[in-house]
């Protein structure tokens, strides 16, 4: 039931996964693959179905239908064959409240035949000052860091991190990013969920954008953006007297948009468009305020896909 994974085999292969709760289709036909040694991100708003998907892959929930292979193991039939080989950080850090950081790490370490020394994990997750603190007295970010440390306690091939940076301050978030990139450089694979755009852009080799239990789009960050946006946007504060016809006729401009008193000109030729904007405003005796160029982001991709912002 377990087969050795070669570089070519994906570590995760999900096809047509369905998980329903009554009328709610928490996961509604999800299909994707994760290549060995890569970081894969499930990006989507709350309720998109990220956690449900991940917990099916971890063998914690039984799906209604679909096929799931993780590290070559059929998770639905043989969840126990998978467990020693994966690391799991649940969305809400589940910790024995009365035990200390070191005690929890030692305890979880004892569940596995192999693993990493507690001291190493404490140092890696920057918990050295909290070694003997009971987990009930840790801050949200520290709890999250301990939860990630617990996911690494068995030195796993594949790590699942469900919203690992939620509740962390920016500095802690960045140091967790370093940890994830470190895991990747050691040849491990990571599946993480997030609703932070920047996090997905920095960490993930490939991203699946999820909403309402479905994957809307999947690919690398560049693919996702360039598939939808061939142009960049030249933007400036709107100027009275510059008509939309005039703007649309400028060189390179494909389309235009007004947003919060700003004009956005989507263009295939940024320098020519900027030149034309400067010329036209000079003719009116004005100077365009806050002139700049905006590269489309994942946020724009999400907005374009769903018609709403990711974080609200």
């Amino acid at each position, binding site marked *: 039931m377990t087969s050795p994974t070669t570089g070519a085999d994906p570590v995760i292969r999900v096809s047509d996964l369905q998980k329903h709760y009554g009328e709610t289709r928490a996961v509604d036909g999800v299909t994707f693959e994760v290549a060995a040694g890569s970081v894969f991100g499930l990006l989507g708003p709350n309720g998109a179905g990220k956690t449900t998907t991940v917990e099916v892959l*971890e*063998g*914690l929930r039984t799906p209604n239908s679909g096929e799931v292979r993780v590290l070559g193991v059929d998770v639905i039939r043989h969840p*126990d064959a998978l*467990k*020693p080989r*994966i690391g*799991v950080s*649940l969305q*809400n850090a*589940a*910790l*024995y*409240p*009365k*035990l200390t950081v070191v*005690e929890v790490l*030692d*305890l*979880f370490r*004892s*569940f*596995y035949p192999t693993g990493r020394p507690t001291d190493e994990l404490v140092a890696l997750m920057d918990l050295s000052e909290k070694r003997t603190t*009971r987990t009930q007295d840790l801050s949200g970010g520290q709890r999250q860091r301990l939860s990630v440390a*617990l996911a690494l306690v068995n030195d796993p091939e594949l790590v699942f991190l469900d919203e690992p940076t939620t509740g962390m301050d920016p500095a802690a978030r960045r140091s967790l990013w370093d940890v994830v990139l470190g895991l990747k450089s050691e040849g491990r694979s990571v599946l993480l969920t997030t609703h932070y755009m920047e996090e997905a852009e920095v960490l993930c080799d490939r991203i699946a954008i999820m909403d309402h239990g479905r994957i809307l789009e999947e690919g690398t960050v560049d693919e996702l953006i360039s598939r939808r946006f061939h142009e960049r946007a030249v933007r400036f504060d709107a100027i009275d007297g510059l008509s939309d016809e005039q703007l649309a006729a400028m060189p390179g401009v494909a389309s235009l948009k007004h947003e919060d008193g700003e004009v956005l000109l989507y263009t295939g030729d940024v320098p020519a468009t900027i030149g034309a904007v400067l010329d036209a405003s000079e003719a009116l005796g004005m100077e365009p305020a806050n002139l700049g160029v905006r590269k489309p982001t994942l946020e724009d991709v999400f907005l374009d896909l769903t018609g709403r912002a990711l974080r609200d």
Partner: protein
Amino acid sequence: MDALLLLTVANIKSFVRDRAALFWTLAFPLIFVILFGSIFSGGGNDRSIGFADLDGTPASGQLKSAFGGIDGLTLVDGDEADLVARMGTGEVAAVIVVPQGYGEAVSAKAAPAMVTVYTDPSQSQADSATRQLVGFVLSAVNQAVSGQPPAVAPAFESVQTNDLSFISYLVPSILGMSLMQVGVFAAIPLVADRQKLILKRLQATPLRRWQLVGSNVLMRLLIAVLQTVIIVGVGTLLYDVQISGSWPLIGALILLGSLAFIALGYVIASFASTEDAANGMTSAVQFPLMFLSGTFFPIDAMPDALKTVARLLPLTYLGDGLRQVMVDGTPFVPLWVCFAVLAAWLVVCFGIAARFFKWQ
């Protein structure tokens, strides 16, 4: 094996660091034993005896000081009728009346001086003890009056009869009650761990379910042993309760009883989805068990309707069995029935918990 051990240690640490749980589990039964012990152990050694001195001579005064000098005996003065009435309320165990003319009769040595002793034969144990006590004192006084050195010096000892004193009844009963509580209270941390998703997190590790359950059971059994030591220790050291049975048999009954009630705790945890619900259900189970299983008074003294209820409750059989093997208590049912009923409860509860217990 390593995981089982570490998880058991983790459970113990969590338990010990939760001061409230620690207090209720260890101090609560202790308070029961000491409270009831100090109320009821008076029936054993300490007794009050009414002393009506109608004579008022130095001779009667001598008799009074002879009684007053006995350890554990308190003399209560009063007139005869009043003291006899107070015997009815249990305030005094017996009444000694020294009639007028006692002093004269003693000094004349013509005929034996008479004293009247009221005792209560319905309190058979107290009655015989009092009769012996009075007999000893009077013979000592006789010798003193006759000027002869005493041929036999009476040594007063507490009189053990075959009847169970109430404290001897209570110690195994409270032990049974405590084992019941340790068991059903297993539900609360279990439901708390499920609510905190700790059980779900454990499910994502290779830890086996039997290891998780095993570590819980081991910890509970350890508490059971600790409680046995505390309760039996206090009972024997403070209240002179004699443990007469064989320890292997006592141990086997404690083990079986603890397991049956831990399984009942798992049944509660199977149907309680929040910690509050678990708290409520535990109370709903433990209080009827406490009061309807013959913990504080013998089942034979209960009305027939309640007797029928008692017959259904597992604590009835643990308490009855413990009283039989620990203090030679009068059986309510034969000992093997106690073992069989507890084993049946264990099997049924285990089956229900295995069927309905959810890990997330």
